[in-house]
Structures are given as structure tokens and as C-alpha cells.
């Protein structure tokens, strides 16, 4: 049977077919849909972990217990999971363990575009890289087999264009007859004290050599000879671009990008006149090929930054006089068109974050920010975020900045973090803030969901990925237990309360936490989000002062032609009745719609 699947859906399918019984992840674009799809297979226990390190540890435990486990995360998530990952390389596995790293060249939804192929080399773990959805499924199955055959975790690397592109996949059956998981004690392999680890390390090196050797005969490393004037070593989505733009060139398509199949590379290099490597981001393959003493061209013509596209690849080869299948030369451009206003993403109407950022802007706070929808608080007109580095960083960085600025400036420092991000890696930051008594104020924007990645549950939402009710972390109690003496909960739609409480806590020269308690409007679970009474502008009272526009709500529209100066209008189809704009109007021009 054939289906059109995204790379992520196909990985989930591959895990199912491979007999995987545990899948664990923390959501992160472009990896999120993998776990949302393993969920469809009842044979797989799928769960969200509070962060990627825990997700990998859950996977390791499942593997040690003898089950096949899949762990998925975005590229920066592997940084969080790196600690267990490097030692996992030494222990190896029992049941097959596959770690999916979904990289994001071009940073469509990320804070950096690190190339996680480097992790495979760094941690000495084999890495497979599929080039379409069919391969996503097949390589996932193969990754489980290699994992058990070579006693190693296996990384499967995708990029956004693989994760989120759909193509046709031939479905297969789930493997049967896998051993039943049970507790097995094997201290020499699973207790990585120096004495044991010293025994394991040489085995890891042997494993790498064995994989490199076997790589030459693996079907996923595919030598395709066409015209031999040009030979291109490539992998992943880049292979598709090469086939599109340079259809007559010979290719060595690497399905395993680490360790490299040296014999096959030598054979290919000897078969072609000029050798190239086409890869996004780092010269990962190129440097290894050069280290083999083989002359090759790569980053001389292809950028180290951003993702590749057919036109960028075409330009790279045309630039050195190699004919490509060019895009039609008459570019339409936007000549003759009026200039178009940009359409950046925006917080939703009724978003509980809006009033908080408006207030922080008014109070001229120095906002140590974090990662989530609320990072959009950086954009005008809210313009109230001053830093954003990585998940959970806001609190530690707030502590740090209060260590160096004057007592007066310390009062301006506020860390802002969402519920999911706080539980991901913010808790330790708060522990430190209390332990070392930073006067910074922490605001936890608790909207009951991991919103940015598309509404995933988390330990403070009360439900698991499988939609089972579970314990809901009591955030105020958690903060109190960490030693915060001043924990206050506010309604972020009440601007006066929001302003008063934030101001008071900013002025307090000791640790304090403010928790907002309104849910994301996108939470679909019944009874969580509730609309307020619909609002409307009273045209007679509206003076056109534009105060209501300062919160950037998509439901409020400026009508320049109305009245003397123009008037505001509230779109009844978008308004959620959050009431924030009504409180900003000094002329009583916003009230309940009739």
C-alpha cells in the first residue's frame, strides 16, 4: 500500500515497522510530528519528556531493558541530550536505539543552524541521512538493525526539507519475533566507571572501523555512474537538488554519513575526472575526503550558511563554468508591483502574553527572554524582550546580569519564561537564582501547553501525549519548594493587577516569581480556554488616539478613513473578549458588543 507521508510521518512508520515499543521526545520544530505520529501505533508507548536529556535517558532505559526505542528532537535538543549521548556511545545498547536529530538549515524555526552531523563524529556514533520519505521509513528500520548488530546507538539525521516534505511511501509490515524485554544485569557494559569505560572505549573505535568497512557494501551508500566528467558526493535532500540541476553527473549518494565508506569514496574518486561534495552547512564530508588525500571541491563554491536550493546549487556550478539545467532565465521578479507590507507571525488575538509584554514595555524592564511563542514579544509594538539564547536560559542569564549592574539597574531585570520551557531547563536556573540570591524577578507565563510547536502537553498541563490524565505540576508550590518567598499568581488580562504586581516585585531586592494563569487560546481541551464577552468600538467615543493599537492585537484594525483622525475597529470574528484593549482606552470607547 502507498501513502503520501512527510519525513516525520515516515520515521514514525519506520519505527512501527521496526518493532519499536518506546518513543520519547521533547517537541521542537522540525521534529515534533514524529511523536505525534508514533502515537497512532498502539504498539508504541509514546511520551513527551520534560526535556531532550530525559527523553534520551528514557530511551536508554528502554534499550537496556531490551526494547527497541526511538528518541526524537530538534538539532539544538541534542545539545541538551549530549551528556548521556556521549557515554551511551560507550555502553552500546541492548534493544535497538535510534536518535533522530532534525536539523534546521536556514533557521526556519530555530536560533542557530548547527550541523549535527558533527555529533556523530564527536560521539563516534553511526549516522544515517535519508533523502525522501521512503528513505526516512527504510533508514529508520535499518537504523534499528544496525544498532543491535553493531551494539551502538544510531543517529538518523533529517533536515527541515526532509522532515516537512511529503512524498510517496510504500508501507511494509511490522517485524515480529523480537525478544521479550526483561531486566538484565550487565555492570561491565552498563556501569561506566573509569575501569569499565576504559574497556569500552577501544570497542567503540573498533566499531567505527567495522562500520566504515561495511559501509562500502551497504545498499544505502549508492554509487551511480553517469557521465564521468563530474562526480558528486552528496546526501540527504542535497542529492535531490543535484539530480534536479546536474542530471548527467555521476553521484555517490551516502545514506550513512558517518563513518564514511572510505573504499567506496576512493573507487568513486578514481572513476570521475572532477570530484565535488555537495552538502549544506559544514564541510563535514569534504574535510574527511580531503583528509584521505583526495582532491575535492566543496565549500569553495557552496555556502557554509543556510540551506541549499536548486537555484543556489545551479548558481554555484554555473559560477565555475559547469553547465546546469538552469531555471528559465526570464525571472519575473516583482517589477512593476507596488511594494508589499511584510507579514510576520504575530501572537494570536486573546493571547495571555500580550498584556504582560505591554506592561514590561511600559515599565522599561530589561527582559531576559526565552524560547516559545512569547519570544514574539520582542517584535513591535510590544518590543519587550532583550535576550533570547536557548531553552531555559532566561533565568540564569537574569541572575548573571544582576551580578554586574548597579543596584538601581538590578530592579529592571526580569526573566520571562513559559511553563513548558520552565520545566524543560528553567527550574535549575531558578534554583540557582534562589541559592545565590539574585534580586531578579521571574515571570512564568503559564498557558498550560507547549504552544509554539503546536499545542503539546507537558508536565504542567495535566495530560500525557497519549491523552491520559496525569499529575499536573503545581508551579507555585514548586517555586516555593525551591525557596522563593514571594510567589504571586496574576491574571494577565487584568492590566492594573499585572502592572502593580510586576512593579512591586521588580522593586523587591530579593528573588520573586510571578505566575500568569490564563491558558493559550489554542488549547482545544474542553473547558480550559473560555472566551469573554465580545468587544466592540463605540464610534462616537473613539477619538482616534490609537492607544488600543499599542498591543498589536490582530483583532483590532485601524480605519484611517473614519472620523477626523481615523478610528479603531474590532473584528468580531477574531475577538476573544480578553478585555485588554478595553482597559487601554481612556475614552470609554470600547465595550461589550451589542
Amino acid at each position: 500500500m502507498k501513502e503520501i507521508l512527510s519525513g516525520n510521518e515516515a520515521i514514525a512508520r519506520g519505527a512501527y515497522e521496526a518493532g519499536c515499543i518506546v518513543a520519547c521526545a521533547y517537541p521542537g520544530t522540525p521534529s515534533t510530528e514524529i511523536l505525534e505520529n508514533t502515537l497512532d501505533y498502539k504498539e508504541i508507548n509514546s511520551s513527551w519528556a520534560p526535556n531532550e536529556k530525559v527523553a534520551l535517558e528514557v530511551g536508554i532505559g528502554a534499550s537496556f531493558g531490551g526494547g527497541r526505542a526511538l528518541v526524537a528532537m530538534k538539532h539544538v535538543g541534542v545539545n541538551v541530550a549530549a551528556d548521556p549521548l556521549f557515554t551511551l556511545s560507550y555502553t552500546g545498547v541492548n534493544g535497538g536505539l535510534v536518535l533522530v536529530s532534525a536539523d534546521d538549515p536556514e533557521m526556519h524555526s530555530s536560533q542557530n543552524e548547527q550541523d549535527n552531523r558533527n555529533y556523530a563524529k564527536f560521539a563516534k556514533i553511526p549516522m544515517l541521512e535519508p533523502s525522501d520519505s521512503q528513505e526516512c521509513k527504510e533508514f529508520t528500520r535499518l537504523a534499528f538493525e544496525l544498532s543491535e548488530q553493531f551494539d551502538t546507538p544510531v543517529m538518523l539525521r533529517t533536515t527541515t526539507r526532509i522532515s516537512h516534505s511529503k512524498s510517496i511511501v510504500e508501507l511494509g509490515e511490522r517485524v515480529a519475533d523480537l525478544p521479550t524485554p526483561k531486566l538484565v544485569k550487565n555492570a561491565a557494559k552498563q556501569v561506566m566507571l573509569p575501569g569499565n569505560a576504559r574497556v569500552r572505549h577501544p570497542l567503540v573505535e573498533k566499531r567505527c572501523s567495522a562500520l566504515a568497512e561495511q559501509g562500502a557494501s551497504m545498499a544505502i551508500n549508492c554509487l551511480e555512474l553517469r557521465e564521468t566528467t563530474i562526480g558528486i558526493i552528496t546526501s540527504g535532500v542535497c542529492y535531490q537538488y543535484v539530480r534536479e540541476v546536474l542530471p548527467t553527473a555521476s553521484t555517490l549518494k551516502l545514506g550513512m554519513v558517518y563513518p564514511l565508506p572510505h573504499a567506496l569514496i576512493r573507487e568513486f574518486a578514481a572513476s570521475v575526472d572532477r570530484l565535488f561534495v555537495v552538502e549544506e552547512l559544514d564541510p563535514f564530508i569534504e574535510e574527511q575526503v580531503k583528509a584521505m588525500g583526495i582532491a575535492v571541491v566543496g565549500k569553495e563554491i557552496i555556502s557554509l550558511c543556510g540551506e541549499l536550493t536548486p537555484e543556489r546549487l545551479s548558481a554555484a556550478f554555473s559560477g565555475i563554468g559547469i553547465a546546469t539545467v538552469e531555471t528559465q532565465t526570464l525571472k519575473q521578479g516583482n517589477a512593476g508591483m507596488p511594494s508589499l507590507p511584510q507579514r510576520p507571525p504575530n501572537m494570536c488575538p486573546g493571547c495571555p502574553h500580550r498584556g504582560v509584554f505591554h506592561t514590561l514595555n511600559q515599565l522599561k524592564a530589561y527582559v531576559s527572554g526565552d524560547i516559545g511563542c512569547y519570544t514574539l514579544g520582542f517584535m513591535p509594538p510590544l518590543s519587550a524582550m532583550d535576550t533570547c539564547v536557548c531553552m531555559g536560559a532566561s533565568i540564569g542569564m537574569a541572575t548573571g546580569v544582576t551580578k554586574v549592574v548597579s543596584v538601581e539597574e538590578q530592579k529592571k531585570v526580569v526573566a520571562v519564561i513559559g511553563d513548558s520551557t520552565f520545566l524543560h531547563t528553567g527550574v535549575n536556573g531558578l534554583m540557582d537564582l534562589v541559592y545565590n540570591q539574585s534580586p531578579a524577578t521571574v515571570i512564568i507565563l503559564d498557558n498550560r501547553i507547549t504552544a509554539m510547536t503546536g499545542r503539546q502537553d507537558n508536565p504542567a498541563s495535566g495530560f500525557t501525549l497519549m491523552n491520559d490524565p496525569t499529575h499536573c505540576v503545581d508551579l507555585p508550590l514548586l517555586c516555593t519548594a525551591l525557596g522563593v518567598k514571594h510567589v504571586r499568581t496574576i491574571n494577565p488580562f487584568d492590566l492594573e493587577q499585572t502592572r502593580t504586581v510586576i512593579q512591586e516585585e521588580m522593586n523587591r531586592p530579593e528573588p520573586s516569581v510571578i505566575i500568569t494563569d490564563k491558558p493559550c487560546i489554542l488549547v482545544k481541551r474542553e473547558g480550559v480556554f473560555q472566551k469573554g464577552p465580545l468587544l466592540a468600538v463605540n464610534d462616537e467615543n473613539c477619538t482616534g488616539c490609537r492607544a488600543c493599537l499599542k498591543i498589536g492585537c490582530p483583532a483590532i484594525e485601524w480605519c484611517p478613513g473614519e472620523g477626523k483622525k481615523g478610528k479603531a475597529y474590532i473584528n468580531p470574528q477574531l475577538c476573544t473578549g480578553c478585555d485588554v484593549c478595553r482597559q487601554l482606552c481612556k475614552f470609554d470607547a470600547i465595550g461589550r458588543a451589542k
Partner: protein
Amino acid sequence: MSTEITNILLVGVGGQGILLASEILSETCMLAGYDVKKSEIHGMSQRGGSVVSHVRYGTKVFSPIVPEGEGDILFGFELMETCRSLSLLKPGGSVIANDLRIPPPSVLMGQESYPEGLANSINNRFSDFLLVDGQKLATEAGNPRAANTVLLGAVSKRLAIAEEFWLAALQKMVPAKALEINFKAFMLGRGLE
């Protein structure tokens, strides 16, 4: 590039149902026996940003993204977003656009105005330009929310894929209770000249 590949771009604003429309389109291509690839960037799509979805079909498709300047059909769900993506089309490409204006944040806030005369500008450059009042026709079919299906019908007219495959894809992807209205909406769009 390869003349055997047909390239379609679906553009609009996050939340307009672009992904579902591109899925129905891809499904149709697969049912008709073609190789098909589709690509778009998720993540920001729920936050009202610009969305571009690429669908390519033919005997064998390599790249999942349409090379710039190679689009055969631009399927626009919103007027300004349609204009923003015109450069993706090849000369002589077709533009099928919903006659709908969704103001972006800067326009909502009164800092910029929604550009005038966009339809004329498109018309001046592309002879095959169809501006569709999707909402009106969808209302005629029974539900204003079926506007995307009306437009899909108009797009279908320009592709050499038999009607049965379109209807089969709709049947598979649209919830049963909305199916009849969507069939009607599709045929209304398909009947547009």
C-alpha cells in the same frame, strides 16, 4: 528545468487551510499515478505569517521545492500573498487567486496601507489570471468555509488530471458530513472560465 514536471505553489496566510488544500492536491496526483512531492515550512504557520506550499508532480520528481521561476500555477488564497510569490512563476504561468484581503499587522496598526490595484498588476503580467470570489461561490455551494475547494476546482481545470481522481481525493481527505458541499464547491470552481 524538466518539462515533465508540473509545479504548483499554494500561498496565503497561516490558518487559511493551505496545508489541507495542498494535501488534497498531492493525493490527487498520487491517485492519478504520478510521483509527487510537497514541501512547506511549518512552525510559524499558526501565527498568521506568510505560508508557501510547493507541490510538484510528474513521472519522477527529485527536489521537493519548486525552483524559483519554474512555477506553472500560483494558487493564491490571499491577494497580497499571491503578489508576493509571483516571482516563483515561470513566464506564461497561471495565477488563480482568491479575491480576499487579509491586512498584515502593520496595516492593522495604521502604519502602512494595504496596497491598491494588486489584481490589475497581476493581470498586466499574466494573461491567464483568474480572480475568484471564493467565499461567494462557496456560500452558493452551501458553506462559505469551502472557499478553498472552489479555488481548487479552478486550479483543477488547468491540470491534465481526470475529474475522478480529484473527487476520489476529496472523498478521502474531507470529513463525510462536509463532502457534498465540497463536491459542489469544487465543481463550481471547475466550471469557471
